[in-house]
């Protein structure tokens, strides 16, 4: 039987997400634990479970706009579509998905002045026949949710999903959202190459030392420390940290990409606020200029129906307008860091012609029957 997290494990993981995994002594102090105890527990947790610590970038402050893409594959060309999407240099997550449609879900961080070209890139895949439909939702940065202990029963060491109580409280929730879920006014570039390089290393492993990063860049650790504190933290470019785990088990749970639509901003805000402390939500993002919310939802398989039933109730009471979702195929999911190679002299290099040329080549090589059509 696979090992399970207990309450103290979850409390530690929640703390590491909230306060960041770089200062274990500081996290121990916040949690009221001796630092050595926390180090020992962490060692045990990392040896027993899948655990990853990654940094979350506030891409808005690097001039990048987040695009959430739902790409429906033309039957027979599912993998081709996945590889076509990879041809754009600015993807950060690409997964095969199933459920409502067979295809891909992609997250891209597109330089703000190249959004039109990005949409043309997606249209090109439809024209070539690799995709039936590509839908893009321009979003705010994704807000990470660290909650793990809520709804967890210490005695039985299981979660108790209180769906009824959740929807009951939504109308009384806060209407103020964190800045990460508010449409940004602009997309300034607040960082330099060193900042971007540090971020991409912390995206891979948030515990990487300044000394190691300094060696990669051939500069002093003090300089890396300066960039970290005075640029990344002070200017808000480094938004938060995330702890990745499979607390509901790997084979007994699923990850979903949900899109929730509302008829007013107030309803959206209340709904989003209700999710900020829930253990089944990993990230949230608001669709720019619309009353729509993206949610990366993590559920034990038996709880899926309960969640859907309660969304259905919210629709009947007029709180929610509609919802749609795709299920992540973990067997075919890729993720990569910010495209630091394309950041030069304080600006992003976005080569639209190359992206389009690459997908044409890919289709020509792998599906010549489509290319001749």
């Amino acid at each position, binding site marked *: 039987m696979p090992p399970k997290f207990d309450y103290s494990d979850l409390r530690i993981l929640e703390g590491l997400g909230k306060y960041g995994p770089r200062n274990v002594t500081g996290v121990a102090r916040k949690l009221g634990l001796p630092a050595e105890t926390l180090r020992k527990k962490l060692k045990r947790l990392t040896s027993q479970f899948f655990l990853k610590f*990654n940094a979350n970038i506030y891409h808005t402050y690097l001039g990048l706009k987040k695009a959430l893409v739902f790409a429906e594959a033309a039957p027979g060309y599912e993998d081709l579509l996945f590889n076509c999407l990879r041809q754009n240099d600015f993807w*950060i997550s690409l997964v095969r998905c199933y459920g409502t449609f067979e295809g891909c879900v992609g997250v891209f961080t597109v330089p703000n002045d190249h959004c039109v070209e990005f949409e043309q890139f997606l249209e090109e895949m439809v024209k070539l026949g690799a995709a039936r439909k590509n839908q893009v939702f321009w979003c705010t940065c994704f807000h990470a949710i660290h909650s793990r202990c809520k709804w967890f029963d210490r005695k039985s060491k299981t979660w108790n999903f209180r769906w009824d109580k959740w929807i009951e409280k939504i109308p009384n929730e806060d209407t103020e959202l964190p800045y990460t879920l508010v449409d940004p006014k602009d997309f300034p570039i607040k960082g330099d190459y060193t900042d971007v390089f540090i971020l991409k290393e912390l995206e*891979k492993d948030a515990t990487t030392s300044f000394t190691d990063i300094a060696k990669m860049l*051939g500069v002093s650790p003090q300089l890396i420390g300066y960039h970290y504190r005075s640029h990344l933290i002070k200017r808000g470019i480094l*938004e*938060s940290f995330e702890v990745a785990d499979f607390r509901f088990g790997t084979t007994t749970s699923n990850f979903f990409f949900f899109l929730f639509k509302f008829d007013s901003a107030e309803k959206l805000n209340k709904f989003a606020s209700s999710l900020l402390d829930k253990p089944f939500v990993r990230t949230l993002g608001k669709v720019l200029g619309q009353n729509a919310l993206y949610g*990366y939802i993590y559920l034990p398989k038996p709880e899926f129906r309960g969640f859907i039933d309660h969304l259905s109730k919210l629709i009947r009471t007029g709180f929610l307008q509609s919802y749609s979702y795709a299920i992540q195929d*973990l067997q075919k999911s890729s993720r990569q860091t910010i495209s*630091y190679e394309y950041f030069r002299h304080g600006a992003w290099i976005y080569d639209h012609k190359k992206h389009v040329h690459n997908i044409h080549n890919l289709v020509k090589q792998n599906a010549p029957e489509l290319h001749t059509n």
Partner: protein
Amino acid sequence: MWDEKTKNGGEKLNLKTALLLLMIFFASTVTTITMAIKSPTPDGFSATETAFATHSLESGKVELAGDPIDNPLVGS
């Protein structure tokens, strides 16, 4: 005589002091220049720059865009 000796001695001392000051000044300048040559600037790229230069953007074959993250879960 006494005055002259003192004057000459004083001139020699001034010359020595000037030379010493000059040496100190140049020593620090030379050190600064050496350090500047040896230490890369904050925006120096080392291995990354080399990799980027080798695989030029124009080739269209290279897919250098970020580093892979060993985590299948979608980030923030």
